[in-house]
């Protein structure tokens, strides 16, 4: 084992350790949420995950972005097979380890496919950058897309472009070295794309070529390790969390909202003629649960998982009737705020710092919440079935049932329902008048 193998091993282990530590922190943050039972219908859940996350079934509703995304997604999945080889080579000092164990035809096929995918990913990322920064598609520039979210997106695209370039240059120089007979490389490999990059390195001496090949090799693997860790502080976390989010997604009809069990208990007690209205709660009874959500920890863990899974594509906001008519509400912002708040709250807790903020008020305002028509355009538009609407509803529940802070007209509507069983002020006795009019 040479010095470079030791350096590789150290870098690799440090990167993996950091990754696991930070991933565990995010999982712990998600577990700060309230409990919700999503252990039912596991067959349907697997199917949903395969169709929506793996199969990308909702992405192509917007064909341009959808097809480009599928290219990057497939490229990411498949090219990462190459990482296995890089890691083995890195630790053991072999070169193109897989070529020594796989039939050469298969190895050539693999490397050839990686190269074709790499160039497609590269082109797709360039188009994505143009869409964001030159064409300036509206949903990438709305008000919650402040400087960091925009930079975050661009960084990821540039990262991917650099990684793909390094991969192709590595193959180009490797191929040159092999055909010059100057390398210790055991076998040739097909390079359907990188051969067209070789002209840049023609005429260079062997030492320079080896240097470039080694540099891009290191760049590629360190880049991947950095990228992996960067993802955890980025909106790009969807590459992992899209899978659990679609597995644990709401499988009920979109119109079906949850019935709060704590309220059911209260209402049943109220309607029970045998209940003792003056009964004191049992001594060991849990304190009554707060209705609705004020802070991120009042949301359930699926909602928090959703918040970390959002990649800020903005399809929700782009289809939201409130957002599209200039209201303050943006469903994407609801998810971003939830993510930022649960992260802040958990960090403060970890550091023992005082925390006086809350999701409601400091991040999301009542005006945003009251602009929602509950039309489900956002939940339907989301390519990974995230549910910002349920967060809006839980926060409305807090406003109304804990703070009595509904808009005046809604309070009037409530008292009409309470007094005469209709949202308008008509006597219940007139309910059948339409029959004779």
């Amino acid at each position: 084992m040479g010095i470079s193998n030791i350096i590789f091993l150290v870098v690799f282990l440090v990167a993996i350790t950091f990754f696991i530590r930070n991933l565990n922190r995010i999982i712990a943050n998600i577990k700060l949420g309230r409990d919700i039972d999503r252990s039912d219908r596991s067959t349907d859940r697997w199917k949903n995950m395969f169709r929506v996350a793996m199969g990308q079934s909702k992405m192509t509703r917007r064909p341009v972005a959808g097809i480009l995304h599928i290219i990057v997604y497939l490229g990411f999945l498949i090219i990462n097979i190459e990482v296995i080889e890089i890691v083995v080579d890195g630790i053991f000092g072999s070169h193109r380890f897989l070529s020594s164990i796989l039939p050469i035809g298969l190895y050539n096929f693999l490397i050839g496919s990686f190269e074709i995918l790499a160039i497609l990913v590269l082109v797709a990322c360039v188009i994505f950058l143009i869409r964001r920064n030159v064409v300036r598609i509206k949903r990438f520039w709305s008000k919650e897309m402040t400087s960091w979210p925009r930079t975050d997106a661009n960084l990821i695209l540039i990262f991917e472009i650099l990684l793909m370039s390094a991969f192709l240059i590595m193959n180009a120089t490797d191929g040159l070295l092999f055909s010059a007979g100057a390398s210790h490389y055991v076998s040739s490999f097909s390079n359907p794309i990188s051969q067209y990059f070789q002209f840049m390195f023609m005429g260079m001496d062997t030492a320079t070529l080896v240097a470039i090949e080694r540099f891009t090799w290191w760049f590629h693997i360190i880049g991947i390790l950095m990228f992996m860790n960067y993802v955890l502080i980025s909106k790009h976390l969807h590459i992992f969390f899209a899978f659990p989010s679609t597995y644990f997604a709401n499988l009920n009809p979109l119109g079906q909202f949850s019935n709060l069990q704590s309220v059911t208990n209260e209402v049943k007690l109220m309607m029970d003629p045998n209940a003792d209205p003056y009964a004191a709660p049992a001594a060991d009874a849990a304190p009554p649960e707060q209705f609705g959500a004020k802070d991120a920890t009042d949301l359930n863990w699926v909602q928090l998982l959703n918040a970390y899974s959002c990649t800020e594509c903005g399809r929700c906001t782009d289809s939201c009737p409130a957002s599209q008519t200039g209201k303050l509400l943006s469903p994407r912002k609801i998810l971003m705020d939830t993510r930022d708040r649960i992260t802040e709250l958990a960090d403060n807790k970890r550091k023992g710092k005082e925390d006086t903020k809350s999701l409601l008020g400091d991040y999301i305002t009542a005006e945003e919440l009251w602009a929602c028509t509950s039309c489900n355009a956002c939940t339907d538009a989301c390519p990974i079935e995230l549910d910002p609407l349920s967060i809006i509803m839980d926060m409305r529940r807090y406003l109304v049932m804990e703070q009595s802070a509904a808009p005046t007209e809604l309070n009037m509507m409530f008292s009409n329902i309470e007094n005469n069983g209709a949202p308008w002020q008509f006597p219940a006795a007139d309910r059948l008048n339409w029959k004779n009019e």
Partner: protein
Amino acid sequence: MSELQVKTMAEFMAEGKEADILFWVGSAGSFDDRAKKITRAFVRIMNKANVNFGVLGTEESSSGDAAKRSGNEFLFQMQAMMNIEVMNGYNVKRIVTTCPHSFNTLKNEYKGLGGNYKVQHHTEFIAELLAQGKLKVIGNLKGTKITYHDPCYLGRANNVYDIPRELIKSLGVELVEMKRSKRKSFCCGAGGAQMFKEPENGAQDININRTEEALALKPDIIATGCPFCNTMMTDGVKAVNEGAAEVKDIAELIADNL
């Protein structure tokens, strides 16, 4: 005008009979002047097809949809449990309603509170009557151009997109689609209890945005299947270009062409 044959569930019970179907009229259908016309049109259809239905009349109360979606879960569940008690008392098995909000709540949200019913939107029910041959429409609206606005609580919320369109087409009309239709439909602005409050500040009211889209197709009629959508689109037409198109419920279109 009292040619409508309407009996309450209480009257059925007094006669020792049972209705096959409960027609859930809804608060809008009971009290709103425009929506009452939709209620009456649907009753005309059911009378024509000799449907054995009853209504709750004064025993009906708000479904609780508006309360629930404004966050007042307490009031919603009170309403739901009272309504369930009444309906279970009459041994209700099947419900049909002209309001997608009641439809959604009764169908999806009552079952967790002890109310298990087969619930249909009136368009689904009318389509069934047509298929069974209990009803025949005259396709005499040829040359009329109609666009259909999907109510969110019928469409996205419960995936009913095609049946309302088939009913419209059965009238022999030209059905033109807005760009934002079916699952991509744009809300009228009334859902989530917005019907009962002023909209939040913004650049434009949602119903205006939607009405402009509909009127750009130059339809004679904007059809829909929800009393709230009807109000919002009617107000929208008044504001954008009064008289440019009529806003009608599918029940009215069918009832006028029997």
